[in-house]
């Protein structure tokens, strides 16, 4: 394999891993509730900020909290884990405010799409007010991963250590989640609720608790993605999650709504497709995801690995 091709594969896999994380977050909620949580992009931003703050990052001057920072500076691993939990807790809050009231009323699921959009807008703009609109320089990847080399050379291709870490952690998270869904009792319950909420309730499954668990986990996935990406690009800003959130949607549709393997395959494919775009045309890179999304929706709305859509009468 030529070094150039290997390079593209590695770069693609690293960004594809993050897309898969975000898409899996959507997938979890979609499979239990049949709705999409549009606040996922904001949770991604939050993950980046939480990681930044927990690593001892200092807020710039143009936010409402100028110069503020936490008294502690945690190592990257711990900061990332706590940030993911933090984003998961905020996701629970979003469920409480944007989803639960409508679900209780039995409202059209499209309405919760709208309320979750609102939740995302509120979160992102509160972030901007508190922390300022400018980007934050993360402690650089090499400083955070002290003791590790800046980059690795594999078969003539150069890959940054941060990217390797990013790929490994996303792969680990995805594997753990899949295993948990397949094997554990709670995972089984979650799949049961996804299959048929009423039947699951009749079997004595607390569907409310399962829904909240799905939100917690999907928030954690988004937070993880945000923290990892923040470290990898050394920058976070209030809006940086939005494009990832939107691309995660594209990945979700590409893989097939509600399909876990689809989300993973879609993420990797999207990452590869982006890596294949030459740098001269990098401005068009953002359009690619949406062109793919558009084409998939028009040609095969069930996605690559999704089930055929059934018309509910």
């Amino acid at each position, binding site marked *: 394999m030529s070094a150039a091709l290997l390079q593209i594969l590695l770069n693609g896999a690293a960004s594809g891993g993050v897309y898969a994380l975000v898409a899996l977050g959507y997938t979890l909620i979609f499979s239990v509730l049949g*709705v*999409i949580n549009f606040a996922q992009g904001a949770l991604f931003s939050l993950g980046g900020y939480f990681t930044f703050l927990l690593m001892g990052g200092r807020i710039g001057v143009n936010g409402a909290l100028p110069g503020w920072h936490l008294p502690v500076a945690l190592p990257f691993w711990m900061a990332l884990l706590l940030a993911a939990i933090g984003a998961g807790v905020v996701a629970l809050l979003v469920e409480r*405010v*944007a989803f639960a*009231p*409508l679900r209780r*009323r039995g*409202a059209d*699921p*499209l*309405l*919760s*799409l*709208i*309320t979750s*959009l*609102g*939740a*995302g*807008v*509120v*979160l*992102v*703009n*509160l972030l901007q*007010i508190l922390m300022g609109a400018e980007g934050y320089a993360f402690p650089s990847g090499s400083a955070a991963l002290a003791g590790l080399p800046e980059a690795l050379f594999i078969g003539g291709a150069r890959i940054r250590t941060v990217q390797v870490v990013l790929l490994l952690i996303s792969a680990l998270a995805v594997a753990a989640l899949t295993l948990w869904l397949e094997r554990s009792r709670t995972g089984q319950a979650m799949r049961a609720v996804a299959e048929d909420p009423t039947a699951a309730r009749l079997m004595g499954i607390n569907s409310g608790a399962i829904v909240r668990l799905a939100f917690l986990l999907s928030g954690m996935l988004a937070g993880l993605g945000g923290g990892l990406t923040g470290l990898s690009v050394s920058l976070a800003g209030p809006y940086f999650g*939005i494009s990832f959130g*939107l691309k995660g*949607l*594209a990945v979700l*549709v590409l893989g097939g*709504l509600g399909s876990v393997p689809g989300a993973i395959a879609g993420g990797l494919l999207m990452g590869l497709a982006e890596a294949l775009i030459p740098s001269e045309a990098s*401005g*068009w890179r*953002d*359009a690619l995801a*949406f*062109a793919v*999304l*558009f084409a998939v*929706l*028009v040609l095969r*709305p069930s996605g690559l690995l999704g089930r055929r859509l059934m*018309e509910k*009468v």
Partner: protein
Amino acid sequence: MPDNGLLVQMILGALLGLSVYLPMAAGQLSLATPAFYAVGGTLAALMATHADHQGTISLGAVLWEMVVAGALTAALAALVGLPVLRLRGIYLAIATIALVEIVRVAILNLPFTGGATGIFGIPQPFGQPLGYIGLSGGLLALAGWGCQRLEGSRLGRAMAAIRDDELATRCMGINTTRVKLTAFVASAALAGVTGVIAAHYLNTWNARQGSFDVAITTLAFVILGGSRSWLGPVIGGLLLTALPELLRPVGDLRLVLFGLVILLGPVFFPQGLITPELLERLGRWDLRRLKP
């Protein structure tokens, strides 16, 4: 009392609200309005800056631009609408968001649209905001009249039927695809024409004018105002555009406010502020007052 400049923006907001409302009246959650708004504005900016107008432009030329932009956005909507409107619910919403993003990136990267800075120095037909109030107000009156006529018409009733139950409507022998497409095309043309006025009024135009943010703000207009009658989005658009400006200290909180409206609106006011029942009650109240 808002000043004239704010009034122009309020009317533009009301027009965009109507553009989001039209597909929604046929039960379709389309977030594509900013895409067509951006195309209309870009078209006006290109046409007006390429012809030599020396800083001013005749009203006739602007009206001509509006015709061109309306026709072009309508054609574009007809083209993308056929495949897109086969999709339902969440799928349609996602597809239209994709459309907005594709148009935004295209405007940002095409060689003739000025990149990130956009096109500036767009000549103005009026020296004062008052002229724009006349132009946009006239358009709003026309659009409102059209929507009012629509409500009782065959097409309007078909749209309402699709909104309640698309399958049943199709069973009644109504070509639901054509009805949905008509609403989508009308919505696009309205957004495109509004973009033309906005580009001249703002004097400058760039890719940010038609972003995901605009999709959210215009959606907020309809959610707050109510999507059950055309007056809802108009009132929603007027109010929500004016509110952040009137509450100066809220300036930075503008988008938070919009977000809260979208977040809490469906929870507390599932139908929006302006509901058909409210209008009916107002109507009865009026009659009682008029009768001796």
